[in-house]
């Protein structure tokens, strides 16, 4: 998984509440074995019925085409737990989502995929959203996860809080499996010790094949 340390990029405003994962990653496009997740992202809003881009959708506007920070409203990522809701983001190039709040499962799914789900302190939210609108894709914002600071045009740096475990995982690029494998030495030691002490737990075979 990609590490998240310091990230600078264009911030795209999608200042809506309750954006659900059916909107983010429409399910009828998720049944193929290897779907095009970048195209799936907000597919119903981004593309018209005839397949052409909807010019009104924020990510279709030239200055936001390479946005890597998405700024959203409350309860972002609600609905189905489908992880494609985040795979579509990473496929498009989004590394950080700054929302008023997230659904629990969506936040977990972000952490599984190296995306920083960021909630700013209450008093900082409205001024930040105003700065994103004012910047209008012309100048980048920057997130420093180590220092827990968000900076950008038209205002002061904003300090943010993040769960230390989330920070630990993102800084090192560890998904849940990666987090466990950060203890690989201990797992190997356990296997060696058990092979010695309780070998039947570590080794088995079909006795019919060996007689």
């Amino acid at each position, binding site marked *: 998984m990609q590490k998240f340390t310091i990230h600078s990029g264009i911030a795209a405003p999608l200042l809506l509440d309750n954006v659900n994962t059916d909107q983010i990653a429409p399910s009828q496009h998720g049944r193929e074995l290897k779907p095009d997740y970048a195209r799936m992202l907000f597919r119903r809003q981004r593309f018209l019925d005839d397949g052409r881009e909807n010019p009104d959708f924020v990510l279709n506007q030239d200055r936001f085409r390479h946005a890597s920070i998405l700024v959203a409203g409350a309860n972002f990522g609600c609905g189905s737990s489908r992880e494609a809701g985040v795979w579509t983001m990473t496929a498009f190039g989004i590394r950080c989502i700054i929302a008023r709040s997230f659904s629990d499962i969506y936040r977990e799914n972000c952490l*599984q995929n190296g995306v920083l789900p960021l909630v700013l302190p209450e008093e900082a939210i409205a001024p930040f959203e105003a700065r994103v609108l004012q910047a209008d894709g012309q100048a980048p914002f920057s997130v420093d996860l180590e220092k827990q600071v968000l900076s950008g045009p038209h205002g002061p740096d904003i300090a943010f809080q993040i769960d230390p*475990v989330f920070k630990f995982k993102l800084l090192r690029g560890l998904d849940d499996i990666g987090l466990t494998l950060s203890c690989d030495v201990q797992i190997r030691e356990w296997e060696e010790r058990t092979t010695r002490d309780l070998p039947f*737990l570590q080794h*088995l075979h079909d*006795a*019919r094949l060996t007689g």
Partner: protein
Amino acid sequence: MTSHPRSLFSKIWDAHFVCARPDGRDIIYMDRHMIHEVHAPRGFETLARDGRAVRRPDLSFAVQDHTVASRLDRTETTNPEGTPFIRAMRAGTVEHGIRLFDIDDPDQGIVHVIAPELGIVLPGATHAVPDSHASTVGGIGAISIGCGTTEMEHILATQTMAISRPKEMRIRLTGELAPHVTAKDVSLHIIGVLGVAGGRGFAIEYAGPVVEAMSIESRLTLCNLSIEGGARTSLVAPDARTIEWIRGRPWAPTGDAWDRAVAYWQGLPSDAGAVFDADLEIDCSALQPQVTWGTDPSQVMGIDDAVPRVEDLPEARRGGYEKALDYMGLRPGERLAGKPVDRVFIGSCTNGRLQDIQAAARVAQGRHVAPGVTALIVPGSTRVRRQAEEMGLAQILTDAGFIWGASGCSMCGGGNGDRGKPQERCVSTTNRNFEGRQGSGVRTHLVSPATAAASAIAGRIADVRDMQGTA
């Protein structure tokens, strides 16, 4: 040094504790991981996407059970819904070098039935399956945990689970079971006592004279339903009966390894003075054969009883009462014994073992399934099927008008196409009577194999104790 008295569960958990993960969860080593075709393909895909390997294919096993058709002449395309899963499972296990019990393997069966039957899971081991009825295998004294798809991927990649240690509950079952009262009746009664969430957050140890007197197959049935009470895992201490039951099974240790294993198993039972977060005692002496009246397994009663009135229920259990009765087509105060039945299913990880087939055959011998009733009996494993055929049980059952199937989950979840029709009343030895589980609108009553067989014969929900000559 005096050692602190420890429970069976603690001894196994502690022996598998690798370390605390940075987020505070325990990393617990999983000795045996068994996967099935509904969840495995997605796991293989994710591993490939992330460039990860299966850490211990030698400790991983795979089986086709959830979607396989139960017709005796089945192939992988008999149930078209299952075909892509079956094929993806085959491809994935070949790629990762995992032993697969495929649709035509002589060892194929429902994952929770074959795991102990083949001696793959052993007492004192940890075991995970991406299926909530994994706790079944706790009946031989293993910590056996159901997991989700993401957790399955985690186990494939790490051979561990990152999990918070559960609290511990002991349920002592005292007294003696009356004739025709089985482990299934006990387990349904326990859920009736606990409620569907009473065991949430707990690992349950079943103990006491009733458990000690049970066969291993009965202990597996007892542990099967723990998740219906909310407990993710449950277990029974291994004893001499367990050890004899395991001896000689295909994957069980042999020679010196066997002797060392036995010595370890003998030290596993809970120490006197072990402390439990909850300690219950349930007297089983007066227990009757049980039957569910509602749409969750805690809505259960003795077969002589009447459907409870809402005022008979504790406050906390009244929610959804009317909806449940409406779905089931029942009235408050009504007796279930005598209700006409359309369909009977005997099988599943709950009651698909040889002992269950024997119980059904004892009832069916010399009798016939009532006209209009479809009675399906599906062995829990191909090995059980073979044994039942060799012993003449299959013949007795088919002579009596039962349909004899090939092993798999079948009508338990209906994932293989075996489903009932709306409003049909189905008496079933499975573990879930949820709305729509056995087909849209199907009304499921959970019972023991003997009660199911008796109901098939009578064409009505029947009390097996009323049947003459049933030993």
